């Protein structure tokens, strides 16, 4: 999908960790599946085995590669570990426009992020299931006002008809600081050791 870097001189790939937050059954996984694989299932089965998915967004001046973390169901009984959103550059807080409780839930997630997440985290509030207009219970204006008050992005999306899903990620990609100096990278992940070279005497 994305152009490969190297074609343009400034097409540097920027890697960002993005986390999804929000109450159960607001369509977090559906948003990701729509964005990453352009698919939709009415009855999305729990995502098993996907620690994180990756997807690239091509902007005019840069390539942004998202490492997207899903909650793996840990939000269900309010049991999400802080490690989940630690170090995240961006967060999509999802609510269901047909469920006012999920909007309340979203607000508390935003608060939690502001309290314990990275101070510079880019937060996007996504009102999902926008295709169910007839059952709308959260007004766009209300959510939008809340988002503006808190200085966060806001979009209404539909994973079902793909409306605004790509735009959501593109908006986030545009907002992320791409020339912030990378902090001194002294910390390292543990990687599988390569077979030792066999050039012994």
């Amino acid at each position, binding site marked *: 999908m994305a152009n490969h870097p190297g074609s343009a001189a400034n097409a540097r790939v920027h890697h960002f960790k993005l986390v999804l937050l929000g109450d159960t059954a607001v369509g977090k996984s559906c948003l990701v599946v729509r964005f990453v694989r352009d698919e939709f299932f009415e009855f999305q089965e729990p995502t*098993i085995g996907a620690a994180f998915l990756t997807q690239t967004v091509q902007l005019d001046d840069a390539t942004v590669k998202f490492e997207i973390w899903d909650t*793996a169901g840990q939000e269900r009984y309010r049991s999400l570990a802080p490690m989940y959103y630690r170090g995240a550059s961006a967060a999509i807080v999802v609510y269901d426009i047909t469920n006012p409780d999920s909007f309340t839930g979203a607000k508390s997630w935003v608060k939690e992020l502001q309290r314990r997440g990275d101070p510079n985290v880019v937060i996007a509030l996504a009102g999902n299931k926008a295709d169910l207009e007839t059952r709308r219970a959260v007004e766009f204006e209300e959510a939008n006002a809340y988002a503006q008050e808190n200085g966060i992005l806001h979009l209404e999306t539909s994973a079902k008809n793909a409306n605004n899903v790509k735009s959501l990620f593109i908006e986030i990609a545009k907002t992320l600081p791409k020339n912030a100096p990378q902090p001194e990278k002294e910390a390292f992940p543990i990687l599988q050791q390569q077979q030792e070279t066999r050039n012994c005497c």
Partner: protein
Amino acid sequence: MVDQTALPKTSGASRHLDNDAPRDEEGLLLEYDAIICGTGLTQSILASALARHGKSVLHCDTSDYYGELDAVWTLPYLQEKLGKGHELKGKMVTVRTDDSTCIPLSPKGGLQSFQIHSLERRNDFTVEQGTAVVTPYGNGTIISISPRGLFLDLLVSLDTWKLANGKNPSVHISIPQSAASTGAAFQKYLKEKLGIVSIDERDAHLILDERSRGFAVDATPGLLYASGASVEGLLKSGVADYLEFKSLEGLLWLENSDSCLEPVPCSKNDVFASKLLSPMDKRRLMKFLQLALDYGTAHALAEEEASAENNKQVLSLNERYLNQGRSLARPQNKAVLADDIRALQEFIQADMKFHEYLESKQRLSPKLCRIVRHALALESGNGDWSLRQGMTSLCQHMQALGRFGTTAFLVPMYGSGELPQAFCRSAAVYGATYLLRLKAAAIATDGEASAAMVKEVMCRHMVVPQDSVATLESKSRRVWRYLCIFRGKVVGSSRSPQRHAIIVPPGAFGPDAVRGVLLDEGVNVTPHVPCGCTILHLTMAVENDTGIDPQDILRRVSLSVLSSKYEGSNAIRIFQVTFSYALPEASNQTKNVQNLHCVQRSEPGLSADSSFEQAREIFAAICPDGNFLAISEQVDTVVKERLGEQIEEDADGLVLDSAMDIIEPKTRESSAT
């Protein structure tokens, strides 16, 4: 394709991964393969291993955070919630297996014996002659405070300003004696009326109030050996993807209250450079370490041969050497005669004590013997170690050297309390259900739940922390923890990272050994502030009722560590807390219940490796033919069905990406030249 119907019933359990498994109104399964209580590191590793093997897992904890006694707390949490004795809210769950007793579980779970003994924050900062202060006019130093008539005359030199003659300007401030006659009133007047406070106080406020969310305080700090069970477990389970590490900067030795922190010689270079040892000691130590490495190699080789059928890759002896800590195991170092190893093995067979061997067979001096026992082999516990135990532990340490950085240890970023959280996430990714703030009330093994119990969940296996079922005996051991936050540094220069382990041998301050860890903002456990700020963790396991005062011992150790500072530093302690928890023994009540597994906290060592070993043991009891932390074939099939080819494509993409990352800077450089 695996035909589900053809599989035996027990291994067909991954049905919970589909949506059609029977669930109650809250979404919980009616029956789980395993219910695990407590999110301590051992249980979390176990949950990940079981979930990846395809077992249905319900993992719960009474607290509202992950990790139990392996947790990482924020400073406000420690001060407010734990300091005031925690209140737990939540519903009760009963768990049934099929036998005939009812075992009540402690409502505090694994925190049953947790107790805070003292928690203080320093607030006795004073301003006097010579104090560096913050004033409304800039930073300065108090030159003098002198009475003049009815006034106190305060002379402050302002360091942030410079006059044309190169001197600092100073301000005179007159304070009516009537307003501030006594010391306390004078201090109050300075602070409130004049806005003059000491820099120490300002920094303490900055660290403990404004930036306190930058703290990650480990309940039980643990490091990881750079090779061995823990690193293998992290890689095999994929949990390594969630975490980052830095290598420990050094291992320090605190001989007694009169001495300073001294680096422990681990590698060959260290041994040569060490000021701790005499030339004779150095020669004997080098010889002994070489023997230990050869022993370790021979030992590992024998083990590998024993399991050769299962292990496809048997490394040759030569490759083994190369894989070991390079600092010691260079091929040109002549191998110790096979005779010495044979003799060592005979002494092991004869059940010799470790210290006896070091003293009489290796003829190490008493001091060197102590260093080898406590800093290299990391001997702990209340009895003398056997030679086998000592050599095994020493080899583990030596083999982990030279992998990353200068020591054998890795420090997890954001605190070791990230480890249980990462393993729990890995378990959740493979279908485990997580419930915090939940009190498991009792284990009913006869199917008769009492009316008071709110809910029942069935399971085949039950894992609980020993603490929640054991009645504490006075004989049992207790872990005492002390931690303090101080401004400044104690090791190296003013810019050196504080990321060191401290070994205090038994007998130095008290009868028991003390382990310490110094950590700073380099591993994101303290806030990033200009004045620098470090956490000192001390840990000691003590037998109950022996008449010693663990709090006093730990405080004296901390004072010695803080006064061991480099020249010109001033390490100022601004916060300290002491707490403790028990190490309960296995009780008979639980031993005889089938399928009930108790997690026994072992004495905390420097490394967290023992948790991996215990988790592996319990896993083997639940899944005798399972591969610990590996994905079972069934789960793999489900994952592939769900994710299609995504994962493989992605792996290719990642390889390509990293290749591009390597090529890109190079092409840039070449185009620039």
